C-alpha cells in the first residue's frame, strides 16, 4: 500500500498558535480578562486547526510539513519536520480539545482561590500545549525530543507554581527524573538509533530493518527508561510529587498532556521506529509488557492506601498509563489498538476525576477522602461526573475504559499471554477497590462539614467537568469508529 501524502502548513500553525498565545498572554498581563480571552481564543483556534485536518486523515492521507532540513552531507535524512498520521491526530485532538475545557476550568479555579503569578501560569500552560501538540505531530525522533523537553521545562514552572519549599523540592524531583532520564537514556538512545539506522524518520513498519537485534533490544530498554513521562516504575516518583501543582495542572498535564506525551512517544517508537513486525521477531516485547504489568499492579496497590484524593488519582494514573505500554508491547493488532484507544479514553476519564478533585477543593476545601462523607448530596454535579470517571477507570461497560480493557484482553489472548490476561483482570479488581470506597463515602454517608460550606464549585468549572464526563461515555460508545481510523497496524 502506498501512502498518500499531502504537504500543508496547518500542522505548524496548530503547534505554534499556543506559542504565539504565550506571547500574547505575557503582553496582556495587566488585563486579566483579555489575558484569559487570549488563552481561550488560542485554545479554540488550535482545536479548530487540528480538526481541519480530519477530512484528510479520514481519507487516509498523511500530512507533512518540513521545517528545517540539515545539510545532507553532514546530517543526512535529518531535520525538524512535522507529520500528521492517525496516531498523532488522535493525541492532538484530545490534547487541544481538553485545553479549551481546562482553560475554562483554570479561570474558575485560579480566580476562586486568588492564586498569584497567573500570567506565568497561563504562559507556561500554553507552552506545554505547544510541546504536547509538537510531540503528536513530530515527523522524526529529533523533533519529538525537542518538544518533549519543551514540555519538561514549561511544566517545571507549573509544578513549582506555589513557590513553597514543598513545591521546590517536588520541582527538583520533577526535573531530576524527567530531564535526568531524558538526557541520560533517551537522548543517547536517539543518537544511537540514528547511528545504527541512518534515519530518525517515523515510518509505518519502522526503520530498523537490518539492525543488529541485540542493539535494537538494548535501545528499547533505553527508550523505555528514558521516557520517564510514562511514569513506569521505577521512574514514577516524579508524578505523585508533582501533585503539589494547582489542580488544573494535575488535570490536563499530569493526567493528559505530559504523561500522554510519554506513552505516545513509546507507542510511536514501537510502531514507527521499530515496527511491530520487527519487534516481535526480537522477542523482547513480552518482557517490556511484564515490566509494565508490574507498574499496573504495583501502582494500584499503592493507590489503595492513599487518603489524599489527588494522590490516589496520581497513582491510578501511573497504573493506567502502563496499560498503554503493556498493550503496545503485546505487538498484536488488538493490543496496539487498545493501547492507542487508552490514550484517548484515559485522558477524558482521568481529567474528569481531577477536575472533580479540584472542584471539591474549591467548593468545600476538602482534600482527603476520609473527609468526603456525604458530599454526593452537596455537590451532585461534581460527584455525578466523578462517578462516571471512576466507573470508566474500573472498566464498566459501556464506558470508555471498558472498550480499552476489552481490546487489551483480546490482544493478550492473541499473543497467548495468560499472565497478562490475569494482570488485566486483577488490576480491574484493584481499580474497583480504590474507587468504589470513594463513591460509597460520598453517597452513602452523612455530610459532616459545616453547613455554610455547602455549595458546588463555580459554574464554569462544572461545565468543564460535566463535558468531559459526557465525552467519556461517548468515547466508550463510539470506540469502534475511533479504532477504525487507525487502519492496519503493521
Amino acid at each position: 500500500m502506498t501512502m498518500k501524502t499531502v504537504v500543508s502548513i496547518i500542522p505548524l500553525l496548530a503547534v505554534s498558535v499556543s506559542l504565539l498565545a504565550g506571547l500574547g498572554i505575557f503582553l496582556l498581563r495587566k488585563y486579566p480578562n483579555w489575558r484569559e480571552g487570549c488563552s481561550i481564543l488560542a485554545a479554540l483556534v488550535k482545536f479548530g486547526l487540528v480538526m481541519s485536518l480530519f477530512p484528510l486523515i479520514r481519507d487516509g492521507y498523511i500530512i507533512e510539513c518540513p521545517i528545517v532540513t540539515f545539510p545532507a552531507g553532514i546530517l543526512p535524512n535529518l531535520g525538524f519536520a512535522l507529520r500528521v498520521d492517525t496516531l498523532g491526530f488522535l493525541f492532538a485532538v484530545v490534547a487541544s480539545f481538553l485545553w479549551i475545557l481546562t482553560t475554562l476550568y483554570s479561570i474558575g479555579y485560579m480566580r476562586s482561590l486568588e492564586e498569584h503569578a497567573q500570567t506565568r501560569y497561563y504562559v507556561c500552560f500554553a507552552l506545554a500545549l505547544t510541546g504536547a501538540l509538537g510531540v503528536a505531530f513530530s515527523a522524526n525522533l529529533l523533533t519529538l525530543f525537542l518538544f518533549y523537553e519543551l514540555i519538561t521545562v514549561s511544566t517545571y514552572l507549573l509544578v513549582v507554581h506555589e513557590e513553597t519549599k514543598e513545591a521546590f523540592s517536588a520541582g527538583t524531583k520533577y526535573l531530576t527524573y524527567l530531564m535526568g532520564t531524558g538526557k541520560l537514556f533517551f537522548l543517547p538512545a536517539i543518537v544511537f538509533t540514528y547511528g545504527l539506522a541512518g534515519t530518525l524518520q517515523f515510518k509505518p513498519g519502522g526503520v530498523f530493518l537490518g539492525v543488529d537485534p541485540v542493539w535494537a533490544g538494548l535501545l528499547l530498554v533505553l527508550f523505555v527508561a528514558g521516557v520517564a513521562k510514562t511514569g513506569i516504575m521505577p521512574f514514577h516518583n516524579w508524578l505523585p510529587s508533582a501533585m503539589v501543582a494547582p489542580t488544573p495542572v494535575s488535570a490536563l498535564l499530569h493526567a493528559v498532556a505530559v504523561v500522554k506525551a510519554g506513552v505516545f512517544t513509546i507507542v510511536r517508537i514501537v510502531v514507527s521506529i521499530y515496527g511491530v513486525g520487527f519487534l516481535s521477531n526480537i522477542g523482547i516485547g513480552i518482557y517490556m509488557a511484564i515490566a509494565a504489568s508490574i507498574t499496573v499492579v504495583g501502582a494500584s496497590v499503592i493507590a489503595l492506601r492513599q487518603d489524599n484524593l489527588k494522590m490516589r488519582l496520581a497513582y491510578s494514573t501511573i497504573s493506567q498509563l502502563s496499560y498503554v505500554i503493556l498493550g503496545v508491547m503485546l505487538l498484536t493488532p488488538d493490543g496496539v489498538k487498545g493501547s492507542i484507544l487508552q490514550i484517548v479514553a484515559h485522558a477524558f476519564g482521568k481529567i474528569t476525576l481531577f477536575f472533580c478533585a479540584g472542584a471539591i477543593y474549591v467548593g468545600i476545601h476538602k482534600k482527603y477522602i476520609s473527609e468526603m462523607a456525604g458530599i454526593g448530596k452537596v455537590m451532585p454535579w461534581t460527584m455525578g461526573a466523578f462517578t462516571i470517571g471512576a466507573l470508566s477507570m474500573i472498566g464498566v461497560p459501556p464506558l470508555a475504559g471498558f472498550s480499552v480493557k476489552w481490546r487489551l484482553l483480546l490482544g493478550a489472548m492473541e499473543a497467548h499471554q495468560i499472565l497478562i490476561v490475569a494482570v488485566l483482570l486483577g488490576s480491574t479488581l484493584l481499580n474497583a477497590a480504590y474507587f468504589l470506597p470513594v463513591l460509597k463515602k460520598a453517597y452513602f454517608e452523612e455530610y459532616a462539614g459545616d453547613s455554610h460550606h455547602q455549595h458546588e464549585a463555580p459554574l464554569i468549572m462544572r461545565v468543564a467537568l460535566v463535558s468531559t464526563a459526557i465525552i467519556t461515555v461517548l468515547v466508550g460508545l463510539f470506540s469502534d469508529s475511533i479504532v477504525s481510523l487507525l487502519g492496519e497496524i503493521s
Partner: protein
Amino acid sequence: MFPILSAVTFIPLIGALIILFVSAKNENAIRIITLLTAIVDFVVSIGLYTDFDSGTAKMQFVERLPWISRFGAEYYLGIDGISLLMVLLTTFLSVVTYLSTWTAVEKNVKEFNIAMLVLQTAMIGVFCALDFVLFYLFWEMMLIPMYLLIGVWGGKRKIYAALKFFVYTMAGSVLMLFAILVLYFEYHSKTGVYTFDILKYHNMGLNPMLQFWMFLCFFIAFAIKVPVWPFHTWLPDAHVEAPTAGSVILAGILLKMGTYGFLRFSLPIFPDAAVSASWWISWIAIIGIIYGALVAMVQSDIKKLVAYSSVSHLGFVVLGTFAFTMHGIAGGLLQMINHGISTGGLFLIVGMLYERRHTREISEYGGITSVMPKFAMVFVIVTLSSIGLPLTNGFIGEFMILLGVFDANRIYAAIAAIGIILGAVYMLWMFRRVMFGEVTNEKNKTLKDLSLREFIYMAPLLVAIFVLGVYPNPILDKMEVSVKNLVVIIEKSKAEARHEVAVAPQPLVAKIEVVGKRD
C-alpha cells in the same frame, strides 16, 4: 582585489592606533571608537561569509606577499570553512564584549581598550595565518594583551593569575616553536626548499617516530590552551581574576585556539600520529568532561563554576574531534561556536551580577528572580543553552558529537552521555540557588533589573541561541567540505596503517632468522 582578510585582521589595530591619539580623559569617545571599530570589523567579516564558496576545501581570500624571503617566510593569509567560522565568532563576540565593558571598566579606559583591540587583531590573525612565522607572531601577540587584561584590570589575586596564565601558555608556545623549527628543517632536508607555508607541511610524509614527537609538542601547546585535563589549572584562576570582558574573550575565543590548532595542524600534518594517539586523547578528554563537571558542581563561586564547565564542555569538543568522523569533527566545530555564545553569555551574566553586588559567591544570592525578572529570563535562556536543551544551540552540537563518537567507539559514547547529564546538574543547581527561593540577603532587595544597554548586548546572543538551535545550516553548510577534507586525510592514513599491518609479519620473521644465525 580588495584585501578583505587583511582588512578584517587589522581594522581593530587601526582602531587602537586612533585611540592612541585621543586624550585618556575622553573616556566615552574612546569607548565609542572601540565599539565602532568592532562593528565595522564585524560588518566587513560578514562580507567574508557571503562571498565564501562552500563548495571547496581550498583556502579562500588568499593574500600572499613575500616577507622575509631569506627564511622563506611569507605574508600569507587565507581561510577555509573552519577558520571562517572562527573569524566570525571573534568579530561577533568582540562587538558584544565592548558593549558590556561600558561601565565595568573605570580605570585606565584608554589602555584597556587598546589592549582589547590589539588582542582582537591577534586572534583574527591566528585564524587567518597560513605561514608559520606569521601564525606564531599572532599567537604570541595574543599573550601580552591578555596578560595585561588579567594583571591590570583583574581581581584580588590578579598578579598570580596573570603570571600563571603566562607561564602555562608560554611553556606550550615554546614547545610549539621548537616543533615548527624541526618541521621547517625537515621539510628543507626533504625538498631543499625553505618554507613556512603551513599547507606545504600537510602530507609531507614524516617518519612515524618524528611524527609522534612533533605531534606531542603541538598537542601539549594546544592542550594547555583548550585546556585539556590535566593542563587546565591556569584556567579557573585566570577566569576568576579577569574582568568580565577578559573572561568572555578568554572563554569565547582564546580557548578555541587550542581546538582550532588540532584541526589546522595536528590532524592534517600528523595524521598517523593523531590516529595512534586518539585512544589516550579520547580518554583524557573523557576524564576532563567528568572531572570538570564534578569540580564545577562543588564550586561556591559562580565564575569558577562556569570556568570549570568550560573544561567539561571543551572535553566534548576534543572527544568529538579525535573521533575522526564527519559528525564528530563537525559537531566539535559547531560546539566551539556554541560554547563561545553560551559561555560568553554566562560570563556576561556573572559580570552583571558582579557589577551590582561585587561578589560572586552563590550563597550571597538567592531569590533574584523576584527582584530582577527580565534578568531572570535572559539567565534562564543562556543556562538552558549551556546544558544543551533542544531548541537551543547547544543541543545540535551535543547531538552531533555524541553521534560522531558513537560511530567511532560506542563505549566512549556511553560514558560521554553521562557527562552530558552532569552538565545539567551543576548548571541548574547553581541557577536554582542564585535565582529561586526567598530573597534572604537584604542587599539583594534593591537590585536594579536589566538596563537597556545590557539587554542590547545580550539580545544578539539570545537570537543566536534560538536560531542556531533550530537552524544550524548556515554554519554546517560552510564547514562541510573543509571537515570532509580532514576526514579524508585521516581515513587515508588509517587505510595505509592497515595495509602496513597486513604486510608486516613477513619481514619480522626474516629478522628473527637473521638474529638466530648470529648466535
